[in-house]
C-alpha cells in the first residue's frame, strides 16, 4: 500500500469533495484551451491568407469601410460589395512596375440561394488573366471550365461537390472544381467567370426575385502582380497617385488589420481566462486544505503507524496530482472538443475562416496546458497544507476526535 494507493482511496471515498476540487479546474482548463486554440487558429488563418493571396497589391475603391469589408472578405469569405470603373483598371495597368493585373467582381448571394443557407460570397474573375484562384484548383478542372457554359469553382468549405448545381439570381451554375482548403476566406467563396456574371446580371431582371444591379464595366478589385524586384510600397504609392479614386491594400496591411482585431479580442479573453483560472485554483486549493485540515487526525494516525512526514507530504501531493492532472487533461480535451464541434459557429462569430489550428499545434497546446495546469494546481493545493502538517501528530489525533 503505497502513497498512490492511499491517495486514490481518499479520492474514491470522497467523490463529492474530489469533484468539487476538479470542477473549477475542468471549466477553467476547458475555457483556457478553447480560447488559446481559437486565437492561435485565427492567427494561423491570417498567416495563411496573407501567404496565399497570390497578389502583391490589391486595389479597391477608396474608403475605410471598404478596406475593412475587403479584409473581412479575404479572411472569412463574408460577402463584400463595392465597385470601381473600367477606366481605373486601365490606369493601374499602365503604372510602371506592374507586371500583371486581374480584376474581380464581387456579388453576394441572396439568403435563399438554393445551395446554401445564409449569404455567400460570389467572386467573378477572368480565367484568362487570373493568377490567384486557379492555382488552388484541386484537379484538372481547368479542362471542364473551357467546355462548360456556366461553371463555378467552390471553396473547400462550401457544401457543393463537383457536378452539383446551384442557382443564383435565376442562373444555374454547375460545380466544375473545388479548391484546396486554404484556411482563408477562399474556403467560403464561390468563383464564377466574368462572362457568366454579366449574363447573370442581365438575366436577373426577369428571372430573379431581386435584380442584380452591376453596371457593365464595373469591377470590385484589381489584383496586381508586381514585376520581380519591384519595391511594393513605392509601387503602391505610384498606383494611388495614378488613380486617386482607389486605395491600395498590401498583403502586409491585411495581416496587420486582422491581427489588431484579433489581439484586442485575445486580450479580453486572456483576462477572463486568467481570472477563471485563479478562481479555480483558489477554490480547489481551499477545498483541499479544508479536507486536509479535517483529516489531520487520520494523518496523525498514519504517523503513529510508522509513516514519516515525507510520506504524508508525498501522499497528499499525489492526491492533488491525481485530481489536478485528471481535471486539467479532461478540461483541455473538452476545450479542444468544444472548438472542434462549434468550429463553424465560432468561425462565423469571430469572423475567421477557421478557428482550429493544425492538429500538431492543438496537441501541443493540450499537452502543455495539461502539464502547466496540473503543476499550478498542485502547487496551490499543497502550499497551504504545509503548515497544517506541522501540527504534532498526537495533537492532530486528539483534535480530530473533537470534530
Amino acid at each position, binding site marked *: *500500500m*503505497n502513497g498512490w494507493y*492511499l491517495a486514490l*482511496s*481518499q479520492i*474514491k*471515498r*470522497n467523490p463529492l469533495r474530489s469533484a468539487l476540487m476538479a470542477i473549477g479546474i475542468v471549466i477553467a482548463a476547458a475555457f483556457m484551451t478553447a480560447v488559446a486554440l481559437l486565437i492561435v487558429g485565427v492567427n494561423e488563418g491570417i498567416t495563411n491568407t496573407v501567404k496565399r493571396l497570390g497578389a502583391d497589391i490589391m486595389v479597391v475603391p477608396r474608403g475605410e469601410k471598404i478596406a475593412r469589408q475587403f479584409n473581412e472578405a479575404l479572411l472569412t469569405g463574408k460577402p463584400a460589395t463595392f465597385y470601381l470603373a473600367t477606366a481605373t483598371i486601365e490606369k493601374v495597368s499602365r503604372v510602371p512596375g506592374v507586371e500583371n493585373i486581374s480584376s474581380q467582381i464581387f456579388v453576394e448571394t441572396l439568403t435563399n440561394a438554393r445551395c446554401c443557407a445564409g449569404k455567400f460570397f460570389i467572386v467573378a474573375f477572368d480565367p484568362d488573366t487570373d493568377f490567384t484562384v486557379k492555382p488552388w484548383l484541386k484537379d484538372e478542372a481547368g479542362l471542364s471550365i473551357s467546355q462548360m457554359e456556366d461553371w463555378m469553382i467552390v471553396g473547400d468549405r462550401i457544401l457543393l461537390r463537383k457536378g452539383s448545381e446551384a442557382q443564383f439570381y435565376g442562373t444555374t451554375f454547375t460545380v466544375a472544381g473545388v479548391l484546396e482548403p486554404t484556411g482563408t476566406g477562399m474556403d467560403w467563396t464561390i468563383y464564377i467567370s466574368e462572362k457568366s456574371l454579366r449574363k447573370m446580371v442581365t438575366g436577373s431582371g426577369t428571372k430573379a426575385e431581386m435584380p442584380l444591379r452591376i453596371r457593365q464595366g464595373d469591377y470590385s478589385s484589381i489584383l496586381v502582380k508586381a514585376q520581380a524586384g519591384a519595391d511594393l510600397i513605392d509601387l503602391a504609392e505610384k498606383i494611388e497617385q495614378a488613380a486617386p479614386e482607389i486605395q491600395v491594400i498590401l498583403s502586409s496591411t491585411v495581416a496587420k488589420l486582422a491581427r489588431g482585431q484579433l489581439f484586442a479580442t485575445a486580450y479580453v479573453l486572456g483576462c477572463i481566462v486568467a481570472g477563471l483560472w485563479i478562481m479555480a485554483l483558489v477554490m480547489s486549493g481551499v477545498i483541499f486544505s479544508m479536507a486536509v485540515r479535517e483529516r489531520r*487526525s*487520520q494523518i*496523525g*494516525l*498514519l*504517523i*503513529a*503507524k*510508522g*509513516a*514519516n*512526514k*515525507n*510520506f504524508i507530504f508525498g501522499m497528499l501531493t499525489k492526491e492533488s496530482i491525481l485530481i489536478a492532472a485528471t481535471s486539467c487533461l479532461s478540461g483541455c480535451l473538452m476545450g479542444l472538443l468544444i472548438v472542434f464541434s462549434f468550429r463553424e459557429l465560432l468561425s462565423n462569430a469571430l469572423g475567421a475562416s477557421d478557428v482550429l489550428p493544425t492538429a500538431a499545434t492543438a496537441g501541443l497546446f493540450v499537452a502543455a496546458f495539461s502539464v502547466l495546469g496540473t503543476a499550478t494546481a498542485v502547487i496551490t493545493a499543497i502550499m497551504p497544507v504545509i503548515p497544517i502538517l506541522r501540527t*504534532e*501528530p*498526537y*495533537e492532530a*489525533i*486528539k483534535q*480530530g*476526535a473533537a470534530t
Partner: protein
Amino acid sequence: MISAINITKTYTGQDGTITALGGVSFKVRRGDFVAVIGRSGTGKSTLLGVTGGLLKPSSGEVFLDGQSVWNLDEQSRARFRGQKIGFVFQNASVISSLTVLENVVLPQSFLPKSTTANMSRAMNLIESVGLGHRTHAYPDQLSGGEKRRVAIASALMNDPPLLLADEPTGDLDSETESEIMSLFANLWQSGTTIIMVTHNQQLANYANRIFKMDDGLIIESSGQTEAEDSFS
C-alpha cells in the same frame, strides 16, 4: 524495556501555561502489563504520547530498548515506531478511506524492507477480533466497537513488542469490553508489553502493575519495586 526519566510536558495556550506532566519517571519491564489510571485531565494520554514518540516532551528522556526515542531524527523515529510500537488511541481509530483488511495491513507498508503484504496474518488478526465477515467493509459501515477492534488488529499487524492503548474499551458495552480485554490478556501471555490507560478499576485488574496519576505525576505505582529489581 522502557525507561522514562523526568519527563515534563507543558502546553502554552491562551489561559497561560498548563503543566500536563510535571517530571515523571518510570520503568517498565519487558512483559509487563501496566494499567495507567487516574481522573480525567491528569496527564494519562500525554504520558502515553510522549512514551510512544508521538508527542515531544518539554524535557526529559524516554529510552525504548536502550534507544533514546527523542534523540532520533523524524524519519528514524517513524521507522522505530512502525517496528516497535502499536497504538490504540482513545478516539481517532482507523483510516476511513480504507477497508478493514487494508487498515489492518497498512502498518506493514511503513516497514523499511518492502515485505510482501502478509495477508494471512492480517486475516488471522481480523478473525481474532471477530470481524472475519467484514474484511471488505469500510469504517463508516462499522459500529464504534467494531472500529475499535479494527484499530486493535491494525496496531498488532507488525507484531510490536510494545502496545500502547488509551482507553481501548472506552464507550464499549461490557461484553465487547471483556472480549477485547481477553484479547489483551492473550497478547500479554504471548510476551507483548502493554501499557493501557483506563478509568475502569476492574480493567486495571487485568494488569500486573498499576500507575495511578494525579496532576501530571505518577502518585502511586504498584509492583514498582519488583520492576526495579529486575530492571537492568
